[in-house]
């Protein structure tokens, strides 16, 4: 992807971001229900309400409010959380790495799963490994993804109690982190006891996020490898005497990647969105868990901030996926 096309892609996301800002604003200010009444209990006096209205600029017209909101957003100010009495940006920056770490581990598991299963199914096409993988992905896709997290809790937490099902690490483990990326930091420091504890805690939530993606991705990769296998260059490789394994891995696989990335890219946003609930189910202290607490506490500035953060993550992810196509597909690189 050239600098110009990257710039064009970035500019294209500006209207989307603007739309997101409008909806985020409208969602929480114009829909039925007074936001101030939502924030404070029924015992508040009219003066209290008036004061808060002024503080949040709600006494102004809706356009002025939106301009204020836009200005605050551009200057990086998302307001102060009502329930935690802290800067929203600070709160989000504190929790975002937790969610990112979880998402990254989940994506890593998915990639390994997709590539492993997709290639395995293609190499042993029509034999039991392919049948097994088809059955697996059909089964995984049949169960709604939110239930996988709960099923894992039942299986690995109760039935065969082998994994922790709550929190980010054992309370007994001593760890004094500098960053919020616990997993990477502990590995980087070489603290294996801590690393193991964090890894065990991240595994089940990450796997529940990865499983639906693996099922869809592996199926896609398999069918695109099969399509590539019918191409002339594969015939040529056969004539040259390459082994079946080598043809699949070094000839068909790289060419099958593009359609797979295109279609699993969309699924990747579902994975990020899925962290909200999975974090809740596993008591994982990330952004999603904080979002649900914010909703329960009716903490408007925090809710808005988190929704916006997720939307920005989605937009960035889409740009990254586009860049990946360009990287994978030489024809697009010179576009």
């Amino acid at each position: 992807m050239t600098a110009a096309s990257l710039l064009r892609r970035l500019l294209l996301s500006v209207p989307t971001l603007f739309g997101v800002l409008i909806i985020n604003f409208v969602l929480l200010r114009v829909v039925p229900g007074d936001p101030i009444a939502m924030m404070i209990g029924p015992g508040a006096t009219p003066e209290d309400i008036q004061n808060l209205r002024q503080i949040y600029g709600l006494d102004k017209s809706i356009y002025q409010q939106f301009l204020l909101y836009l200005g605050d957003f551009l200057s990086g100010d998302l307001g102060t959380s009502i329930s935690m009495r802290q800067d929203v940006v600070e709160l989000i920056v504190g929790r975002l790495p937790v969610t990112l770490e979880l998402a990254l581990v989940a994506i890593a598991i998915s990639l390994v799963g997709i590539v492993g299963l997709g290639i395995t199914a293609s190499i042993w096409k029509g034999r039991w490994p392919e049948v097994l993988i088809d059955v697996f992905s059909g089964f995984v896709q049949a169960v709604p993804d939110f239930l996988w997290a709960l099923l894992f809790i039942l299986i690995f937490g109760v039935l065969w109690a082998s994994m922790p099902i709550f929190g980010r690490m054992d309370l007994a483990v001593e760890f004094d982190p500098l960053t919020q990326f616990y997993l990477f930091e502990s590995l980087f420091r070489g603290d294996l006891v801590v690393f193991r504890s964090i890894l065990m805690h991240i595994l089940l939530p990450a796997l529940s996020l990865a499983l639906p993606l693996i099922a869809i991705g592996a199926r896609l990769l398999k069918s695109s490898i099969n399509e590539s296998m019918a191409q002339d260059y594969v015939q040529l490789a056969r004539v040259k005497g390459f082994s079946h394994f080598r043809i699949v891995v070094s000839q068909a696989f790289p060419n099958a990647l593009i359609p797979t990335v295109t279609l699993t890219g969309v699924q990747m946003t579902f994975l990020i969105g899925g962290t909200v609930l999975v974090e809740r189910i596993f008591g994982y202290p990330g952004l999603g868990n904080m979002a649900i607490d914010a909703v329960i506490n009716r903490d408007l500035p925090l809710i808005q901030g988190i929704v916006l953060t997720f939307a920005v993550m989605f937009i960035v992810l889409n740009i990254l996926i586009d860049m990946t196509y360009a990287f994978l597909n030489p024809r697009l690189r010179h576009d």
Partner: protein
Amino acid sequence: MLGLGVFLLMALTAMTGSWLAPHDPLEQDLLNSFLPPFWVAGADPAFLLGTDNLGRDVLSRLIYGTRVALMVAVIAATLTGMLGTTVGLLAGFFGGWVDTLVSRMVDIWMAFPAVLLSIVLVAVIGAGLHAVIIAIIVIDWTRFCRVVRAETMVQCQQDYVASAVTIGLSRRRRLFVEILPNILPLLISLLTLEMGIAVVVEAILSYVGLSVASDAATWGGLIQEGRLYVNQAPWLMVFPIACIIVAVLGFNALGDGLRSAFDPVLRR
């Protein structure tokens, strides 16, 4: 057929719930808390699937939960389908600025995480069944819209639409009498798929504690309560999870069945 069976079973359970349920779903019996289901030693045959932490009958609560799930599934999916289909039809049929506007809106919608948005929406509207239904409509109309828009565009290229233009049918007749019936099989599978999604969304929202009143019995609420006592009484989670899986698979099977029954090409 299997799908139809599951659907009818759910409908029957929902309608006869108050008669079918052996106990009041809210009746507490603290002396009989955490009773196991009937096949485990120590079970009380009066509570077939055991009791929860407050001694409430799990079976009765599941039966009452069916009513909520089915109501949300049918109402939310139908309304979502109506909204999304209308917008999609218009965008696909008229093209031009209508299509650009709709497509941009869908893009923006897709930039929001669905789960988070539904939770926020319900919080804003105020917890309750109507809020759950509104949240599903607001979030999922894009699913219908995207598919219907694309399919309408494909249909518009077909010869029969060109013939309809030639014989001078009005735009409205072309859209509703010619094109709409042709995308109906697709709509039916989307609709049943959406019913399954609606059941899951309702479960998610009641899991988080934002669906109907917190003491009412819903599948998601049962799962959430079960999650708290998962080590003492894992069956509290197993049954509602099983219900959701059966319901979702049932809806999907219903969609496949109806689709092949309605689609003359598939029927052959």
